[in-house]
């Protein structure tokens, strides 16, 4: 009997979208685990090619993972030793530093509003610039006194959780194949090949997504750093990397990154508004490059989703789980799509179910053979 080619119906698709939304809702409750696990997955897929190379060169998986992890720690350690002192020297007293950059950004915004007031009389009558300055100054002063302590406490509370990431990544690398075999061992023979395909697809989707995300981050960081360097802005590479990492959060991340660079430009180059507008234009340009060239070349290839579904899912993710939902919506949907289609295939294949029942019958007969 030749099996019919299976295509997912509306029920399966509804289950995929519903399942993704439910998972997003549940995952935001265990953020302390989700964030380090995501970072661990990023590290895992970053280091996996090197580990595979060493295994194929004849090393045991344990030795290959230990060696690659040690090398990664050395690289990160050297990077911190090189960059941290210069960053610390640049930042100096963080409170003054934060206040200086907030003040610079505020001055830039008020100047821009005053220019607008000069051209639009109704804005001048409403004293938009003065009101905005007063509101933001009040917010900033109350924020610093009321919430900065809480924010620093949150960062301190999150640090041990984030330190889980390299620990998790090490065990993902070392025990990942063993865990996959362990999972497959529990699957009955009739469903074995379908499960093999399912796990390979989930792995492929996650690998392409996270490796795509890393490539996208590198491309974004390089483009932004080059643009900022051409504009003559200080620390272009650091700003490029920071803003590219912020862009992992769809929409909000890019806006935050842009705001960060405008703050730096407005403070380091006071009065040069054209430079701040140049930085904003650069962000818009990189955003467009991202959406139309880089994203389809990197992440877009991995998920093969309809653009409408992608945008819809990002909005659903945001509504269900806030910023976490925005970040997790697409990778989770990718994995749920693979799972949904595979489970749909298995449930809708009577031949597989019949084979499983037949195998159970044969085994039962064998077990009871000498009991008759």
């Amino acid at each position, binding site marked *: 009997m030749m099996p019919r080619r299976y295509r997912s119906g509306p029920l399966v698709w509804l289950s995929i979208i519903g399942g993704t939304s439910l998972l997003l809702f549940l995952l935001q409750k265990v953020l302390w685990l989700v964030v380090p696990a995501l970072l661990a997955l990023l590290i895992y897929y970053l280091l996996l090619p090197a580990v595979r190379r060493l*295994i194929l060169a004849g090393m045991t998986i344990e*030795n290959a993972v230990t060696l690659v992890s040690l090398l990664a720690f050395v690289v990160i350690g050297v990077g911190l030793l090189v960059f941290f002192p210069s960053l610390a020297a640049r930042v100096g007293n963080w409170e003054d530093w934060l206040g200086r950059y907030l003040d610079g950004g505020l001055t830039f915004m008020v100047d821009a509003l005053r220019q607008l007031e000069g051209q639009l009389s109704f804005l001048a009558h409403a004293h938009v610039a003065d009101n905005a300055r007063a509101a933001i100054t009040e917010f900033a002063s109350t924020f610093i006194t009321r919430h900065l302590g809480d924010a620093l406490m949150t960062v301190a509370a999150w640090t041990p959780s984030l330190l889980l990431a390299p620990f998790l990544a090490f065990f993902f690398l070392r025990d990942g194949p063993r865990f996959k075999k362990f999972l497959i061992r529990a699957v009955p023979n009739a469903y074995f090949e379908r499960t093999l395909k399912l796990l*390979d697809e989930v792995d492929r989707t996650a690998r392409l997504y996270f490796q795509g995300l890393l490539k996208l981050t590198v491309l974004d960081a390089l483009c932004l750093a080059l643009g900022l360097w051409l504009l003559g802005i200080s620390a272009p590479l650091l700003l490029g990397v920071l803003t590219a990492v912020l862009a992992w959060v769809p929409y909000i991340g890019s806006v935050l990154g842009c705001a960060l660079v405008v703050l730096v430009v407005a403070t380091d180059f006071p009065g040069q508004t054209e430079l701040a507008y140049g930085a904003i234009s650069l962000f818009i340009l990189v955003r467009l490059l991202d959406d139309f060239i880089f994203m389809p070349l990197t992440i877009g290839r991995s998920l093969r989703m309809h653009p409408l579904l992608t945008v819809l899912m990002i909005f659903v993710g945001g509504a269900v789980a806030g910023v976490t939902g925005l970040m997790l919506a697409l990778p989770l949907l990718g994995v749920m799509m693979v799972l949904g289609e595979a489970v749909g295939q298995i449930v809708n294949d009577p031949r597989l179910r019949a084979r499983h029942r037949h195998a159970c019958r044969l*085994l039962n007969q064998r077990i009871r053979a000498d009991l008759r």
Partner: protein
Amino acid sequence: MPLLRPRRLSDRQQQLAAISLFSLLDSAQLRIVDHLLHERHYTAGEVIFDAGEEGQGIYLVLQGEVGIFRPGEPPLRLNSVATGGFFGELSLLGDAPRVAQARAIKDCRLGVISRADFTGLLDTHAHIASRISLQLARHLGGLLRQSAMAARPQP
């Protein structure tokens, strides 16, 4: 703990060495293949895969015997694969559906390498790829010779 693998092969690796597909591999290469292996147990009479299914792996007979059947009523036994043999390679090589049904004739212990792992192995390790490819070519040549002999009219 030494950085490189110890030299002694495990029992399963020794069984792998006896499989014609891997007979040209050295011990380090056998360990790489062993690392990719899923072990499955089948009861006599149990279907391993059906004709028309999408092939997801190559099967190595570590113990037991497997029959290859052409679908039909009654099914026609085309071949049998005993300990040390392998099957399921055609759909992996041709990226095509399975052409026949595989069913355990005796209780079997099979090693399975998934499509992704098998093609990944061939893509990333030139030495293993060339040795496995040579054995696969010999195996397919043998199958061709068998079918040519079977098709020749008897005098």
